[in-house]
């Protein structure tokens, strides 16, 4: 059973009186533990795809199965629970709560889920150590560098031990060096079995993923996994 199964996904937006097909005729399977880069020109539907996978958005048509369950028909509260327990987000602009400390930001998903304070503190302490943030626990986001902020964001995305991490241009606001560090962190997480889907503009970064999806006008233009299979077919045939 694939972790993610998209079939016949359509996502349309109405802009004035023209309909924008942000996603069209999308069929896609992603296995648990995969490392996928989503690439393509601006406006090709990468973010829309990620929002859909993260249950922040619903398709107009088609079904989305996550871990074998049709999640498009779930109620908003049920979707919130799935987001809380199975999915972690990493954003380009970090999205930390400015008035909360690094530790509190990392704990936020657990706070929202109602996990007891003692358990929260234990897990946050471990995360701060894992992500090299022990010295920054009580710092507010505006006292942290870009790289540190994104590390806090990644720590937050993983604190609920999700099955899937969705990162939308996670290095877009970082310089090359810190960007690489962040990618290393994400890849390390993937190495522990977490499925990782990264949207990126960066060819080099995309190439590091084991599978590349290229989007164009809301459609899947190429999928390296599918190419492998067809190549495989040619060789064997």
């Amino acid at each position, binding site marked *: 059973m694939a972790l993610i199964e998209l079939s016949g996904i359509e996502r349309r937006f109405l802009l004035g009186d023209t309909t924008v097909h942000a996603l069209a005729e999308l069929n896609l399977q992603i296995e648990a533990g995969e490392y996928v880069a989503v690439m393509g020109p601006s406006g090709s539907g990468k973010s829309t795809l990620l929002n859909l996978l993260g249950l922040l958005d619903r398709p107009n048509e088609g079904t989305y199965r996550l871990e074998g369950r049709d999640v498009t028909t779930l109620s908003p509260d049920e979707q*919130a629970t799935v987001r809380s327990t199975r999915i972690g987000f990493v954003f380009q602009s970090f999205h930390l709560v400015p008035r909360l400390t690094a530790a509190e930001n990392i704990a936020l998903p657990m706070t929202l889920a109602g996990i007891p304070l003692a358990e929260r503190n234990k897990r946050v302490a471990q995360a701060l150590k894992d992500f090299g943030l022990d010295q920054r626990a009580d710092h507010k986001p505006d006292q942290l560098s870009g790289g540190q902020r994104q590390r806090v964001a990644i720590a937050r995305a993983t604190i609920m031990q999700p099955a899937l991490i969705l990162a939308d241009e996670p290095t877009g606001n970082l310089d090359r060096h810190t960007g690489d560090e962040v990618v290393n962190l994400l890849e390390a997480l993937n190495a522990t079995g977490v499925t990782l889907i990264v949207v990126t503009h960066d060819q080099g970064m995309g190439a590091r993923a084991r599978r590349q999806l290229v989007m164009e006008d809301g459609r899947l233009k190429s999928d390296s996994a599918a190419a492998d299979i067809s190549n495989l077919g040619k060789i064997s045939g």
Partner: protein
Amino acid sequence: MRLTDTLRFARDAATGYPMRTTLSVLAMSIGVAAVVILTALGDGARRYVVGQFSSLGTNLVIVLPGRSGTGGFNPANAITTTPRDLTIDDAGSLRRLPGTRRVAPLAVGTSEINYGGKLREVMVAGSTAEFIPIRNFEIAQGLGLPEEDWNRGSSVAVIGAKIREEMFGANPAIGQIVRVGDRRLRVVGVLKSTGQGLGMNTDELVIVPVSLALAMFNSNTLFRIMIEANSRDAIPSTKEQVMETLKQRHRGEEDVTVITQDAVLATFDKLLGALTLAVAGIAAISLAVAGILVMNVMLVAVTQRTGEIGLLKALGATARTIRFAFLAEAAMLSAVGALVGYLLGQLGAFALRQFFPVFPAYPPDWAVIAGLSTALATGLIFGVMPARRAARLDPVQALMKH
């Protein structure tokens, strides 16, 4: 999200925007303080008047000459019916009624007092021995009026504290002969100084036997008859008996008015109570205004924190969690505002009492409770709309606003 976490989250959010928070807390506190201070004023006025009225005496039933249909003082009635005189004997007849403890006739007029070449105008009250205890006056020196035949008053006077001071200065007054109008009267007592109250000022009063006063004013009719009933419960029956007795004596005509202190007191009590309520209502309007301000502040908060709301949703917050968080914040703003306002109001009432010690400016409990709960309720009610708006935000759209 746990309750303590929700409250902490709301508190941090509120303190994160000090300007906005201060503003709404201030508005709410002004509203509550207004309720507390204004009702303290209103209720203080009520207590003051009631207190003054009670000091006139206890369980009083008062007879006035002339008839008044509704029990009020209607000048039209006074003109159309020429009242029969209210006489000393009328008063005397009431002494035999079972429910009465004391009876005192009262005649009032002005005259001049003269002693040792000093002359001044005075208020003269003609009455009997029981007048002083009925009115709760106190004797500072000497005695009150003697117990005697009401129609044959002896030539004595009880004088007010200020009269004594002006006429006699440091010299003893008791036993001295003063001239009041055309009478020579012996001073037998001096009243304790009471200062200005709602009733008459006794400091400038001269009390003489009632028959003397009527002769002095060349009159046959009394100004009032004051009756002290045995108890509060005896007041209505006493009133009825008084009316019946006088009606019989006046050949079946109801040409007197009988009022009870209780009724007057109750009227004032009601009137000023209603006034306090009205004032509280007006002050409550400022609470509603404060509630609207809290709503605006929360709407601004939702707009300002749209990105944050999107994030919370992405992190798995349910609509309910977000609604509670924003509602808790609104409730906190109004609760703190209400508390600050309560303290400010109590402080204001305290200051009032310091400046006007005779005025018991205490806010009534009902007003405090109503003010506080109105503040909390408006805060919550006006907080619902922004909270729902926050909870309904589309997460994708919200996340783009950062």
